[in-house]
């Protein structure tokens, strides 16, 4: 368990405790909402965990670095942002990977696009996002993030030569 998790658990525990003291009925209502939401989302999340595991196991970082690194210019940016959107990679792997993409000659733009879509666009998370926030919101947000990635990439490319 890392520090963040511990802080979240303590915060939740304290809030729950205060809630029980203040109003037991309301707390039960809150827990019922929590339970229902959790149960409804659980199968999707378990499925996504398996998919993420498979992606990381079977799509080698070397392949990603080579595919993006080989293509410079606009094509490189396009490939980088698409791969970033589809893949899901933890930060610990993502930044060293971005570095090797950069070293392989992909250019600053493609690297920036890759990081941005990697973090902001989540095709893997889309089923959960649609469930909790609705199709319209989910599609709009992911589309925005995709456009943002390209804009950010271009701006960074212009600033850092």
């Amino acid at each position: 368990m890392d520090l963040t998790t511990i802080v979240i658990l303590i915060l939740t525990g304290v809030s729950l405790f205060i809630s029980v003291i203040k109003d037991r009925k309301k707390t039960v209502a809150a827990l019922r909402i929590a339970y229902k939401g959790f149960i409804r989302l659980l199968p999707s999340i378990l499925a996504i965990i398996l998919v993420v595991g498979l992606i990381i196991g079977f799509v080698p970082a070397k392949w990603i670095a080579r595919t993006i690194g080989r293509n410079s210019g606009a094509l490189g940016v396009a490939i980088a942002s698409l791969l970033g959107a589809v893949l899901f990679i933890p930060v610990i792997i993502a930044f060293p990977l971005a570095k090797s993409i950069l070293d392989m000659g992909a250019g600053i733009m493609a690297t920036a696009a890759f990081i941005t879509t990697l973090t902001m666009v989540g095709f893997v998370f889309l089923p959960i996002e649609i469930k909790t926030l609705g199709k319209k919101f989910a599609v709009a947000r992911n589309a925005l993030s995709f456009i943002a990635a390209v804009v950010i990439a271009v701006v960074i490319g212009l600033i850092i030569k």
Partner: protein
Amino acid sequence: MNEKADAGANGKKRSIRERIRWDYTILLLLIPTFVVLVLLFPQKGGPARHVAWEYFKEMAYVLPAVFIIMGLVSVWVEREFIVKFLGEESGIKGVILSFILGSIPMGPLYVAFPLAAVLLKKGAKVANIIIFLSAWACIKLPAELMEFQFLGWKFTLVRYLTTLVVVVILSEVIGRVFFKEGFTPPAEVLDETGD
């Protein structure tokens, strides 16, 4: 007020049942696929299993807590409060607050969706919630430290600031173009009816 009643009346049972079946179908197909692939390719299966297990642990710790927070916010926090700080009239304060809320490191993006849903339901502005989710996704202190380490301060700083500006502008555009009449998230996950 009426939305909740409507959502409850419009054949809710059927649509939920249909969806639940989909979830479980996919999950039940994925489990054997995962097991077979991991057994057939032990070299690739090792990392796959490791990563899946790590995410499973993270989910097991964090997700129940996040849903409890969602439930508590939904029960305790007054709508007026959210409207005041994150609603249509919240202006630049709402933008800044959304950024700060989103930057609190609390785990992967899917954790933020239920929280976003409850904030939207309480009257938060769509643009602010998109900012909240974007910040959650790509502006995290631990991640920034790694980025700094691998890609240098110049890249990190420029990317950070550009992201800030682009996200604020585009989320406002999305809010104005697609969600002119406001937005209420579906009742599926954030279900406040007392059955």
